[in-house]
């Protein structure tokens, strides 16, 4: 126990030493940079660049196991990002959207151009204040009014939006001809080709789409046991789903590796300066 503790202290010291070393080296390389006017600026910037590299490595260390460095980075990240969104929300939404529409005095105070009094902006203001009533244990139930408004409006709006944009278009797109360009049995065989734009391939594809959609929907049937013909259809449905999931997974592997490239670029180029 004592030994593992001393090891972690040694590691901590090494990490701190490396951090300081990197900071000093970065600061000295910056000093020759004409953009950085004073020593103070180079020291500050060098600190942040080293910090970013340290945090990058701290997050990567999570791959080995949970450790104090990851915990530090995680907790710092949570705190700072929550505050960041609070600030962005305050300045851009409250000051940017709400204030110019409700009060001239506040607009001058926050130095934003006053757009005139708009009654409609009092609705979210009042609902927002109602929401804050949660903090009161006695009148907390009033906040449900705001929740009810949000949930009700969301439900109505999204129901329609989804039906219109996704659902109906998918249904109508399923209406594909099962015999593409059918001119009879003779021409079908005489002009037979396997090319992907050929009649055979198109017809086959349309059949696969039709059967795929059909069986996929059967798979999602809840009120009938998956037995007999119904069971076969639903099994075909899940096959099609699985093939799709495999394909999507394989497809995504590609993009994910490129994210790593971005981080490697930071570590090797911006921080260590190993490659140009």
């Amino acid at each position, binding site marked *: 126990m004592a030994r593992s503790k001393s090891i972690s202290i040694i590691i901590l010291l090494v990490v701190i030493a490396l951090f300081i070393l990197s900071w000093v080296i970065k600061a000295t390389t910056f000093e020759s940079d004409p953009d950085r006017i004073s020593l103070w600026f180079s020291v500050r910037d060098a600190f942040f*660049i080293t910090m*970013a590299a340290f*945090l*990058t490595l701290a997050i990567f260390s999570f*791959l080995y196991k949970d450790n104090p460095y990851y915990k*530090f980075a995680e*907790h*710092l*990240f949570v*705190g*700072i990002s*929550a*505050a960041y969104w609070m*600030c962005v929300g*305050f*300045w851009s*939404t409250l*000051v940017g959207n709400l204030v110019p529409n409700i009060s001239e005095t506040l607009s001058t105070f926050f*130095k934003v151009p006053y757009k005139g009094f708009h009654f409609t902006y009092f*609705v*979210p203001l009042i*609902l*927002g204040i109602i*929401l*804050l009533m*949660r903090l009161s244990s006695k009148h907390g139930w009033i906040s449900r009014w705001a*929740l*009810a*408004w949000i949930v*009700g*409006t969301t*439900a*109505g709006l999204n*129901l329609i*939006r989804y039906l*219109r944009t*996704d*659902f109906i278009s998918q249904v109508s797109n*399923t209406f594909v001809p099962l015999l593409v360009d059918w001119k009879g049995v003779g021409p079908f065989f005489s002009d037979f080709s396997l090319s*992907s734009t050929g009649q055979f391939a198109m017809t086959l594809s349309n059949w*696969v*789409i039709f059967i*795929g*959609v059909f069986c996929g*929907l059967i798979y999602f049937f809840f009120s009938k046991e998956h037995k007999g013909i119904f069971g076969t259809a639903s099994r075909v449905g*899940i096959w*099609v789903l*699985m*093939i*799709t*999931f*495999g*394909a999507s*997974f*394989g*497809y995504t592997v590609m993009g994910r*590796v490129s994210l*790593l490239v971005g*981080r490697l670029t*930071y570590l090797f180029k911006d921080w260590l300066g190993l490659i140009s």
Partner: protein
Amino acid sequence: MKRQFPLALVFIFGFAMIIQYFIPHQHSEWVNAFFMDWMMIIGIFALALGIWSLTRVSWDKVKHKRENWQYAIVTLAGLFLMIFFGFDYFRHFSTAVGSDNYMYVHFYQYIVIPIQATMFSLLAFFIASAAYRAFRARSLLATLLLIAALVIMLRFNPLLGPLQPVMEKFSVWLLNVPNLAAKRAIVIGVGLGMVATALKVILGIERAYLGKD
């Protein structure tokens, strides 16, 4: 009042939103945009509740010296420092981004951005470990999953030689045809599920979220 009024609100606003779609007016998109605008403003008030919750949970940890309480201090320090810099209004201010305080900008640039990008890039590793663990020919379904993934992953691999163009054609077909069918089935199902859920909410059948007392 405590229970009936919110339910009435849900019902009235839910139906009003449905009906507005069928009445011609200038742009139905605008209703949505307007709603989003309002939601954003309400969201800021809610965010205050969120920050309150985060602070209380963290402070609780510190106060009772729960496990890992030291890190809760880091969270609190980060939170309040950033809020302090972000509201450093009288000296540095521009409407577009709020504060342009040096520390605020650099905290974002050198702490938030790198950690975010690194968390995201962990996916490269996790996708590898998930593939190694899950892509086993255990059953017919697992095998289908495995084969489809391999085909797509290999489609541009030049090491395949003459097989490569075949693989590529096949993978394009996979993406265009069965993929389309399965996604359509899912989208249609999801659409119905959404409509059902939304209707249940509007009709007041589903009301767990409205509390009870």
